[in-house]
């Protein structure tokens, strides 16, 4: 061990150790530092709690946005594949002709199923959904056309192929015009894309804030322990030895901040649940608000740990180097 005095290593504490034992002691020291720095945070609870809360909130926002995107995606994925083509039948076409049309359409290789909604059926449905009810009885004649609902096969459900199919179907003699429910799908997709993009941007900004917050906290802690660092350097501590506790502190901040964010998001979801179920009730769909699953929680924690490490590493690199014992 000793650079200047050969053989002093034996006399000093570092007796000959095998590589495995050395590794064991290295890991042991690492853990000891970890526990120690946790204890340190415990001893200054106010400062630690403030920092942790700021970190937790900074992590909560991107996590919430992520949960929102996830749920919106879940809702919209129900629509993505159900591209349905509505074909409006010309008024002058008789019922018999319509029936043959339905059969003919069913034979298309691109078509999976055909569903016919007669004028009367359409009116009934409209009465039920719209709530106009009896008001519609005053109409002299049914204003609604007969509709043929065509569901394309899986291969033809994409935006482009469905458009081609629509053109083909529109060329049928009996069809007035067709409508592909694709525009709103495209809009939804564009909106979703925008949402994802903004979540990403906001996320990057907030995560950088986390790095800076941790970096600054560690910087203050380094300044606070300036004298201690000087003494450590004087009695022969390596930079690794001096850096490790601060890096651990950053990591602990990350872990606890990540947990705070998780708790915040869970509480928020719990709070929102009743509101969501109200909305879901209106839309008559079965939708359950989804929170973070285990792997996402793990990812959040790892990310927080990584950010904590980066933040503290940046501070440690910059500021501990500057602290040199200037006076003997």
């Amino acid at each position: 061990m000793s650079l200047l005095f050969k053989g002093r290593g034996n006399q000093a504490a570092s007796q000959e150790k095998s590589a495995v034992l050395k590794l064991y002691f290295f890991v042991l020291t690492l853990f000891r530092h970890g526990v120690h720095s946790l204890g340190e945070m415990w001893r200054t609870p106010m400062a630690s709690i403030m920092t942790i809360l700021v970190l937790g909130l900074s992590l909560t926002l991107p996590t919430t946005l992520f949960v929102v995107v996830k749920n919106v995606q879940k809702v919209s994925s129900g629509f993505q594949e159900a591209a349905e083509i509505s074909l409006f039948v010309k008024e002058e076409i008789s019922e018999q002709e319509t029936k043959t049309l339905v059969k003919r359409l069913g034979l298309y290789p691109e078509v999976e199923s055909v569903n016919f909604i007669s004028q009367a059926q359409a009116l009934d449905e409209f009465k039920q959904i719209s709530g106009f009810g009896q008001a519609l009885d005053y109409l002299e004649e049914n204003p609604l056309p007969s509709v043929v609902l065509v569901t394309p096969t899986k291969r033809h459900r994409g935006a482009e192929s469905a458009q081609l199919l629509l053109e083909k179907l529109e060329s049928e003699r009996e069809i007035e015009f067709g409508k592909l429910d694709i525009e709103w799908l495209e809009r939804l997709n564009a909106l979703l894309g925008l949402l994802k993009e903004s979540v990403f941007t906001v996320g990057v900004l907030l995560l950088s804030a986390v790095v800076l917050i941790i970096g600054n906290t560690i910087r203050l802690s380094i300044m606070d322990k300036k004298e201690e660092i000087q003494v450590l350097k004087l009695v022969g501590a390596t930079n690794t030895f001096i850096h490790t506790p601060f890096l651990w502190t950053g990591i602990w901040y990350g872990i606890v901040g990540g947990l705070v964010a998780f708790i915040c998001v869970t509480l928020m979801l719990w709070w929102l649940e009743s509101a969501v179920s109200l909305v879901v009730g209106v839309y008559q769909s079965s939708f359950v608000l989804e929170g973070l699953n285990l792997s996402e929680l793990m990812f959040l924690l790892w990310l927080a740990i990584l950010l904590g490490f980066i933040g503290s590493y940046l501070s440690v690199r910059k500021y501990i180097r500057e602290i040199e014992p200037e006076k003997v």
Partner: protein
Amino acid sequence: MAIASAFFGLDMIKFDQVSKTYPGGHMALEKVSFELGRGELAFLTGHSGAGKSTLLKLISLMERPSAGKVSINDVDLNSISNRQVPFVRRDIGIIFQNHRLLERYNVFDNVALPLVIEGTHRKHITKRVNAALDKVGLLDKVKCQPSTLSGGEQQRVGIARAIVNSPPLLLADEPTGNLDPELSMEILSLFEDFNRHGTSVLIATHDLGLIARMKYRSLTLEHGRMLQDPLAIDPLKDDFLGGHA
């Protein structure tokens, strides 16, 4: 010790035409050359600003010389990289005028610091810390906080920290600066005791009265130059130099 040193022909510390100029242009040391033999105890004196601190800083690698060569145990310190500096410092026990204890820790933890840094096993740490505190006569203060101790006691804790890993070389910068003569003598007799066990000791002090009472060599700095002190003719000195002649 003197015989051993002469036999091996090794100096503990050797300065060879060492100059140090600080960035501002202030020349703190100018072509200083001297040797401290193995197992020797010597004083380093001079007015404040004469370069004593700079000289000690060059030995403990807090500063690097602008010119010349500093060696410890015949190892050229210019060949030591910044990364290796901590390992060099582990071979040097340093004692400061203001003792530099960490207020957050108790006496035991303060003294244990150099051992913890080296990764010593806990079992050995307890044993050696107790031994070091026993040597300075503070075994009963193990659990105390440094701030509750008197100045002399704090200084002795600092000494215990410096010797806990039995370094071959001890440097002390004004170790008696804040103490009354009686306590100063006590501290000095501690250094003598370590020296008797083979440790080389270099003590920087401006307390000339103290030096006069002891029969050790003294190196005098004046305006960055080394003077020979005619008062301190050490009968052993010839032996030390003789090894190289």
